[in-house]
């Protein structure tokens, strides 16, 4: 790009019949009043003289524009539209900073008291080719007056840095008729004819789909301030959006300064300038103005704004965990990135191990030695850790294992959401390996469930798997600031003498529970082993010892289940349809249930936090509904697929567990789209189930 900064300075000048004139463009909104530009003759043929005298004229023009703007804003201030919520997307090629832009918009909105949920749109490659449909990188920000629990339905406004990246979003159903597209227009005049044609074709497509497209000279505007708008355009767009939504400018500027705090003051200054320019551009050139009144929800009275992985990191610190051992894996790693920054504040240490197995081995070693330890990973890492998890079960070593689920199997969809690790978490270890598995439904639970996991791990002398997912990991939401007290932290490692008459596995017959000696305790010396062993931790190959060990380990799960309460039904406790779910789908499902119930449909939902052991009373709850179906983001066969019948159909993962657990005909609806479910899509599932013939009546198969 060239030409905006000419070497012979003729800025604001043009020549007519040898005479130099000066002109200044009028912002679009003021053109009715002032015309396209303000211009006047400088009455000189001499360029140098014109260069001198133009400034007085420009000053005068600017004053005229300001006065017109003041008159105009008085008139139009009531034109600002008040909305209960809005969904914005920013999509770009990778590396153009769309996510940073949306994150700041979300943060500022959260800090202004709005309910917020953000979802990142992440390509799997770091630098996919530019202008590629599948290379879309971006973010969705849902802002509302009320508490927001999910990504919502279709976007209201989308800012696109090129037209191609919109296609993958369109095919994901992210937009509706009337969605406003603010589109970078530089491609219309690209030197490459193919690109120009693609751009023109795309515009036709977008219009045909009912999108309202505004072509904006974002690149051109940014070039006034920076040489390479690939870095910086995002802050210009942030400025635009902050104007459109009347966001607090000071808060936004603070966040920008925070974002670039590790860079120079010059970088912060330039990004502030870009932000201001974008803000002014939207003010002058765009007619969209919205206000989203802030929520009066008391959960936001004293809040922190975090994503799910930061919540896990803070949860680790608040749980008094002292060591996190990890190996880089998407989408779990950012939890460790966060901890690498702040963990020393609570005396903790992040160990980046040589591989996934070493990571859990290191954590197990630390835990065996009395430290509270945790390992954080994702599906492929869980697969590698399987043998170690089995060891922790067998030798009864407390450990918190966080699995930030992604698409699978194998490398699968590294950056995208799936709830595919439920069965492998519960049943993945060879032999009988009773596992405690819990799943966070919200970002708030990403924080609190780490403490829950640690307490279960220590009380029941067992590893605990905490499932989150890519949606929670990157979703940003304000949550109530946790009220942590000193007793959340573990006491110093107990080094008092161990009664030599108490064996290291002094299993209680009722519960399977036992205290464990910690190295350093005199009299407690024992040899932990992954081999079959008796109460004395002596290798025992005999049948009786093996049976006893298996019974004791299994009994701990029953003992834990006995402490749980039945889950609460969302909606009426009886009805035509019950949706059963787990993990991050909770918010979208409950929103869909609200909408359906408002329409008079007899639908409720039940969200499970404990997957192993299950919360009690499920069968009784299910009996109150005509149909029960799970809603999950993992694969299942649909009944009408080729070759699929009652014998061959593979059910979704929670459905398999519940069918075995309740002996009831629990149906399932599940998909693997790589993105979260919208309330709208769940609404359609509800309608389809309610429309089934003979949908009333319990379908127990006793």
């Amino acid at each position, binding site marked *: 790009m060239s030409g905006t900064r000419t070497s012979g300075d003729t800025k604001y000048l043009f020549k007519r019949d040898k005479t130099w004139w000066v002109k200044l463009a009028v912002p679009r909104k003021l053109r009715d009043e002032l015309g396209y530009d303000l211009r006047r003759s400088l009455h000189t043929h001499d360029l140098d003289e014109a260069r001198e005298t133009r400034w007085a004229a420009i000053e005068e023009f600017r004053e005229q524009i300001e006065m017109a703007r003041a008159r105009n804003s008085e008139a139009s201030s009531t034109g600002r539209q008040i909305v209960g919520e809005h969904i914005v997307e920013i999509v770009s090629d990778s590396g153009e900073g769309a996510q940073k832009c949306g994150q700041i918009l979300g943060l500022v909105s*959260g*800090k202004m*008291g709005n309910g917020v949920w953000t979802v990142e749109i992440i390509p799997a490659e770091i630098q996919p080719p530019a202008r590629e449909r599948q290379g879309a990188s971006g973010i969705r920000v849902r802002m509302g007056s009320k508490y927001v629990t999910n990504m919502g339905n279709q976007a209201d406004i989308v800012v696109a840095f090129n037209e191609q990246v919109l296609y993958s979003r369109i095919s994901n159903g992210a937009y509706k008729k009337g969605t406003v597209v603010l589109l970078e227009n530089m491609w219309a005049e690209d030197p490459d004819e193919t690109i120009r044609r693609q751009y023109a074709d795309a515009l036709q497509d977008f219009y045909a789909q009912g999108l309202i497209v505004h072509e904006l000279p974002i690149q051109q505007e940014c070039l006034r301030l920076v040489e390479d708008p690939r870095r910086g355009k995002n802050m210009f767009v942030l400025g635009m959006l902050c104007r459109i939504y009347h966001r607090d400018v000071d808060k936004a500027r603070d966040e920008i300064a925070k974002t670039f705090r590790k860079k120079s003051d010059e970088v912060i200054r330039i990004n502030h300038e870009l932000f201001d320019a974008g803000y002014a551009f939207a003010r002058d050139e765009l007619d969209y103005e919205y206000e989203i009144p802030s929520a009066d929800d008391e959960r*936001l009275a*004293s*809040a*922190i*704004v*975090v994503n799910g992985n*930061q919540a896990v990191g*803070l949860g680790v*610190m608040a749980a008094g965990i*002292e*060591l996190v*051992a990890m190996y880089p894996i998407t989408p779990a790693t950012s939890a460790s990135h966060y901890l690498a920054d*702040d963990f*020393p*504040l*609570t*005396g*903790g*240490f992040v*160990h980046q*191990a*040589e*591989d996934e*197995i*070493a*990571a859990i*081995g*290191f*954590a*197990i*070693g*630390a*835990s*065996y*030695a*009395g*430290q509270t330890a945790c390992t954080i990973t994702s599906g492929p890492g869980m697969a590698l850790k399987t043998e*170690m998890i089995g060891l922790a079960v067998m030798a009864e070593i407390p450990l918190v294992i966080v699995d930030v689920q992604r698409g699978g199997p194998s490398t699968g969809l590294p950056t995208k959401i799936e709830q595919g690790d439920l069965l492998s978490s519960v049943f993945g270890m060879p032999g009988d390996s009773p596992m405690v598995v819990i799943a966070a439904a919200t970002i708030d639970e990403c924080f609190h469930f780490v403490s829950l996991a640690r307490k279960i791990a220590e009380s029941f002398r067992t590893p605990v798997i905490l499932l989150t997912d890519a949606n929670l990991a990157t979703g940003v939401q*304000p949550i109530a*600031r*946790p009220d*942590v007290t*000193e007793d959340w*932290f573990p006491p110093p*490692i107990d080094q008092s003498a161990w009664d030599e008459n108490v064996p290291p596995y002094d299993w209680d017959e009722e519960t399977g529970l036992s205290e464990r*000696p910690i*190295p*350093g*305790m*005199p009299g*407690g*010396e*024992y*040899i*932990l*082993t*992954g081999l079959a062993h008796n109460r004395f931790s002596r290798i025992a190959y005999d049948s009786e010892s093996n049976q006893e060990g298996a019974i004791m380990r299994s009994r701990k799960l029953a003992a834990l289940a006995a402490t749980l309460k039945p889950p609460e039904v969302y909606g009426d406790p009886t009805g035509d349809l019950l949706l059963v779910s787990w993990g991050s789908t909770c918010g979208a499902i409950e929103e869909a249930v609200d909408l359906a119930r408002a329409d008079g449909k007899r639908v409720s939902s039940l969200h499970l936090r404990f997957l192993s052991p299950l919360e009690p009373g499920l069968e009784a709850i299910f009996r109150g509904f005509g149909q029960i179906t799970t809603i999950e983001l993992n694969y299942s066969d649909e009944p009408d697929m080729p070759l699929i019948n009652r014998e061959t159909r593979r059910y979704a993962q929670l459905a398999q567990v519940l069918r075995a657990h309740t002996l009831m005909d629990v149906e399932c609806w599940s998909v693997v789209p790589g993105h979260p479910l919208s309330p709208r899509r769940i609404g359609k599932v509800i309608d389809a189930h309610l429309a089934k013939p003979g949908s009333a009546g319990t379908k127990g198969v006793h």
Partner: protein
Amino acid sequence: MFGLKGDWSLEVKDRYFTLDDYCGAEPRWCTGCGDHGILAAVHRVCRDAQLKPEKTVAVSGIGCSSRLPHYMKTYGFHGLHGRALPVACGIKSRRPDLDVWVATGDGDCFSIGAAHWIHAMRYNVDLTMLVFDNGIYGLTKKQTSPTTPVDVPTNTHPSGTLLPPLNPLTVTLGITNVSFVAQIVDWNAKLRHQVIEMAHRHKGTGFVRIIQRCPVYVESIGRTLQEEPARMQLLTHGYGVEADDSVKRQFPNHAEHDPTDLAGALGIAADDSVLPLGILYRNPDAPRYDDISSAGLEMSVQEKLAGLNRAFDHFAI
């Protein structure tokens, strides 16, 4: 006290540990197995250092070697095949007060646990690492290990192993931040004790490869060396092994080697014609991971809570 000079201080130990205080279950290794001698040396080094049994942890993986913790009366961790080192490093990382030993073997360390071997050498956590190298998989009954000599028939290569054996010394010496590398044979008690004692005293990972006899499956490996002592070369030095005459008599082939000379050590290790014994390399100044990973241990609960609130402030509205 009567007859004693007033400025003498008598060191009175409230606990004195004998060999029995370190001896656990009766070893179940085969008769003639080299592991018995190594265990005896470990017991003696523990006794000589008066290690508190409750502060001592023996960690192992899977294999004949890895039964060692069961024969100790300390704390022990008999874990998974190949994974002793991550567990041991995890134990030591946040418990600098514990004395950590690792017992591993040629299959456990050089094959399934090879990744951990390399990285543990670089972490240089303060522990004593004994590799019982008998050149064969014993517990699973005679499969080829990475160090099985070429042409030795095994159950997985009945016509003889296919490839020349791995040289664990050149690999170990080639790892950045390695700090202590030694090699011994199980059947010389004096040298065995001296080198294991030095490895234990070393601040950092004391790596000792022990050529260990398996009389059941590869009796020839030990016998050949015992019959032809010239195939071994004892490295002596004032900063390494200062062998007395009795040891030197057993190893007529001996040479001076300065253990601070890494390049020299690599040259010796790479020479396949003789088996070097003694200390190849020693650097007490290499950075130790446990020094870094133990940061923050002294922090009080009040300080932690204050720190956590600072962390919340980073995200506060």
